[in-house]
Each structure stands twice: as C-alpha cells, then as structure tokens.
C-alpha cells in the first residue's frame, strides 16, 4: 500500500508520466526515448530537490505515516531470538509498549519500545501506541532485569504521548513516567535510545534517558504536538504547520540544540519505503554505539548519562542582559 504525502506529489506525478510514455513507446511506433531520458533526469533533480529540502511539517507527515516501520518491524529486522516479555507484575500488560530479550549480532540485549498499530484493529489493541502507567512499569521492570543480567538496553521511541485518560491518572501516570526517568539514571548498563517516529513529550522521554539518543532523519521529538502548540499559542489547531517550524521538533533542529547525539539517515522518501534498508542504517550506528559504550565501566556509564542530560539547557545571568 502506497500512501503518497502531499509534498511528494510532484515526484509521483512525474514518475507516472514517464511510465505512461514508456508504455506508449512500446505500443506505438514512435521513438520517445530521448524525451523519456530528459524526463528521467528531471525526475532525479526533482527528487533531490524535494527530499533534500523536506520542511518540518512534511517530516511530521512522514513520522506519522501509517506504514512507517514500528518497533516490532525493527526488532524483527535487527535482532535474533527475540523473546517478548509481558506485564508489569502489578496490574496489566500494556500492549502500547513491547519489550523483551534478544540478540544483536550475537550480543544479548534487552529491547523495549512503544508500539502502535498499522491498522485500526491493531491500533485499538495497542491504544495507538499511547501507554498507560503499567506500560512504563513493564518497561522499567525489564530494564531492571537487564541491569541485573548486565545486558545493554535498546529503546525505540514512537508515541504521540502517554495516554491522557482517567484510569491512567488514577494509576499514577505522572509517577510512572517520573520513576522511569529517575531509575534509568542509575542503571549500570549501556542504554541507547532511538526515536523512530513521533517522540511525544513525557510519554516518549520515559524511555529516553539513555547514554546515546539518536533520531531517524524524519522523526520528531517535542514537548507538545504541533497541533497542541498551535491551539495554545494561536488558539487555532490548524496552524500546526507553523508550530512545527517554530517548535523546532525535527532531528536536525534537536541535534543543533544538543538534545540528541546524532541523526540516522533515512532512505529517500522515508523509512516506510524500505524497512530492510532502513534497518541496515540503524544497525550500523547501533553497532558503533554499543562498541563504544561497552568499553565503559558501570560507574562511567552512569556518569556519562548524568553528563548527557546535566548539560542540556540554555540560560544566562542578569548582568549579561543589562550589559554590565
């Protein structure tokens, strides 16, 4: 199933035209190959132009693409012997988060990630990838297990946010998120986080306190959705496009702000065009990152993570402002 995004339309149309011409030359007796060649060159240029100048709002669309690969897609492409573990041992199994043990190129690891569905039925089952407290508590349980058995932890981040519901509040959504931030800080194993789709606020961050944080090129990470920001700022959710730009939520923006360590390049048009190829890109960076982190001692890992977050933020002192 191919779902074209608005900004890609010129490419899709041109490609269609070339196909039509090709078909036409096959059936008719005219030779249009030089025209076709010209159009193909134009297509290449157009593709380059469009995909190299993707606007923030277009990235939001790619990040939300219904066919965008999910945590489980990457797990099956990147890891062997994945064994899924369910439940928080207290209340329920929240299917908006999946997690378990696996091997990465032979190395035992724990993998955890937000999981949304690709169709309505699966989305209902997975609550659109929006976890309840028990989801975060399951994640923490698995992280502590990884800590005990000295396995690196790999987190995939892909959620619109923690679920805003009555039951979620009753069971302590705030506490569950806060607890994860707090406990992740103290784990003695490498933690690598990769934002693969939408990184929505605290619900994303609750799996995000890692030694290294990467983002796929077209994913987003933000304190509030562009729609939410637009509604608050301009009392108009339809200005989401502007908000997407103002809020600086794309991978290049966040790299510049020092929030993430690196950008994982996406294949032309977005990860959904070829999961296998995209997985290879992730595999490369994951391998390097693991190699680097595995050489650190337990204490170094904790200090490294502390410094990672301790330094984020921009501030000044009054003297600078009045020019003393």
């Amino acid at each position, binding site marked *: 199933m191919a779902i074209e995004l608005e900004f890609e339309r010129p490419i899709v149309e041109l490609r269609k035209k070339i196909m039509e011409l090709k078909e036409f030359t096959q059936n008719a007796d005219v030779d249009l190959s030089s025209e076709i060649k010209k159009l193909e060159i134009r297509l290449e240029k157009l593709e380059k132009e469009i995909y190299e100048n993707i606007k923030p709002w277009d990235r939001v669309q790619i990040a939300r693409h219904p066919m965008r690969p999910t945590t489980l897609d990457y797990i099956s492409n990147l890891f062997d012997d994945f064994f899924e573990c369910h439940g928080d041992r207290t209340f329920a199994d929240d299917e908006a988060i999946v997690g378990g043990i696996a091997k990465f190129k032979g190395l035992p690891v724990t993998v955890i990630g937000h999981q949304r569905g690709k169709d309505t039925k699966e989305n209902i089952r997975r609550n659109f990838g929006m976890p309840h407290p028990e989801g975060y508590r399951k994640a923490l349980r698995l992280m502590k297990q990884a800590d005990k058995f000295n396995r690196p932890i790999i987190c995939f981040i892909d959620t619109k946010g*923690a*679920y*805003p*519901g*009555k039951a*979620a*509040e*009753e*069971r*302590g*959504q*705030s*506490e569950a*998120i*806060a*607890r994860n*931030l*707090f*406990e992740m*800080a*103290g784990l003695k194993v490498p933690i690598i986080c990769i934002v693969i789709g939408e990184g929505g*606020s*605290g619900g994303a*961050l*609750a799996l*995000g*306190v890692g030694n290294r944080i990467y983002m796929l090129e077209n994913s987003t*990470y*933000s*304190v*509030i959705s562009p729609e939410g*920001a637009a509604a*608050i*700022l301009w009392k108009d959710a339809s200005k989401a496009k502007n908000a997407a730009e*103002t*809020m*600086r*939520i794309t991978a290049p923006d*966040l790299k510049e*702000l020092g*929030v993430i360590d690196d950008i994982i390049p996406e294949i032309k048009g977005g990860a959904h065009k070829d999961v296998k190829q995209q997985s290879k890109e992730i595999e490369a960076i994951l391998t390097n990152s693991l190699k680097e982190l595995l050489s650190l001692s337990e204490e170094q890992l904790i200090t490294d*993570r*502390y410094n990672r*977050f*301790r330094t*984020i*933020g*921009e*501030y*000044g*002192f*009054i*003297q600078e*402002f009045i020019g003393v």
Partner: protein
Amino acid sequence: MALKDLFTKNQPKKKKYATIPTEAAKNDVPEGIMTKCPTCKKIMYTKELIKNMKVCLHCGHHFPMTAKERIESFLDEGSFQEINENMVSKNPLNFPDYLEKLEKDRLKSKLNEAVVTGIGTVGGFKIVVAIMDSSFRMGSMGSVVGEKITRAIEKADELSVPFIIFTASGGARMQEGALSLMQMAKTSVALKKFSGNGGLIISIMTHPTTGGVSASFASLGDYNLAEPGALIGFAGRRVIEQSIREKLPEDFQTAEFLLKHGQLDAIISRLELAEKITLILDIHQPRGELAWQ
C-alpha cells in the same frame, strides 16, 4: 448632522443600562481590605487571611502563595539565603514574543524566574529548598527552572542536607521546546544521584502541579505530600474528557483524589506544614551509635 455621522462608527456610544456580572467578576472582590473565598464565598479581612497563611478562616481553602510568602511562612525567620537568583531565561528557539512575555512577568511577579532556590532552616534543621511560583509564566519549567532546581539538588548533596521542593507549575514551558522537556530528565538524574548518596527528598505539591513537573521531580520525593485541594495530574482535564468522552468526577486530580488512589503519603494543611516537616526531618537526622538506648 453631517452625512458621515449616519454611520454607526461615528455615533456616540450608547449608554448601557444593565450589566450582568460574569461568574469571574462575582468572585473577584477588589484587592484590598476584604477577600472573598472562592470555595465558601465568605468574605474576610485580607489582613487576617494573610496572618492565617492565606488559608480561609471559614473553610480552610488554600489560596495560592508566592514564593516569597512561602519562604516567610515555612522557613525559620531570617534563615533563608537565596542562591542563583540572577539566572534568567534566554530564547533558544527564537520563539516569537517570548522575551517580552518574560520581561512582563518579571515586572509583575518581581521574580527572575518561576522558581526561587536557597538554603534555610526549618525547626532548626538545615535544608536546601526550591519553591516554584505560579505567578511567573504559570510556574512552567524551561531551562532556567530546570537548571536552578538541579543546582539546588547538587547544593543539598554537597552540604549533605535534605532537599525540599514546593511545586506549582503548569508543566514544561512550550517556548523552549524540547529543551524544556529535557529538564524533566535533568532534574530526575540529579535526584537519582542525590538519592544514591542517601539524600532525603521531600516534595510538597501545591496548586497546580501538572504535566512535566508532576511527571518528574514532584513525584520523586521519598515523601510526596500535598496541600489540601491542590490540582495535581499529568494530563489536563479537558484533554482527558475529550479522549474518554465522559464527564470526570468533581474531585478528579485533586490532592484528595490522589491520596485515595495511593499516589501521596499525606495531605498536610499549610498551618501545620512546618511542624510536620520538622518531625520528618528530625526522624531523618543521623544519630550515630548513641542513637537508641
């Protein structure tokens, strides 16, 4: 009469004969001698209210307190020494109108940012305290709030004294985007380190404590306490009502609701707060070998 006067724009304003006061106006007794309680609607002398730590004399409603008032009512007299008071926000995203809004709130609240941090004593016990003030940008957390709180935690660690935080915040500050979000992580990793060194953390949630603040340090106390009636929660009420399509109970996300659902150690009236905190601090004093006989 000139022709242009026929147009309504140029006609003298019509006299209004009746005005119906809005709900807000009914509750709004002009500041001054008397204050009206929004809960029981009774009127009392402002002076008496302030003397009573801004707790309603009739029904116990807790009025919002500024950081300054909090320092005066909670800490031992004259014990407070502020730290990092000159830290101010920049505009990392070049967000439109952000600096102007900060300046406006600076003038209005006479604060440099939404949190005041420092060292003081309660019942004679030395502590580091961070007090959020919702009159500055709704108490929202940006880089400066995160940094000041983190430095306060580190100060408590350095001095080996308890860390007490009064939260009052609408959540992360939108105008600093993901940098605000990351302050949740920054403060939490600092608390973890402090906690690992045996530090005592007491969180006192006051009205309102929501969003990113409730989902980080506010919930990470060894003791999580709250003032009566305080609004505490992760998601906003309206957002939840929209997502579950039902009306929420009246007491939803109040301190009392949280206590009922096991999220708080206790709700403590402001009038007894210093006394109860002193009790907790006393129990946590290192006593050495002569501790118990």
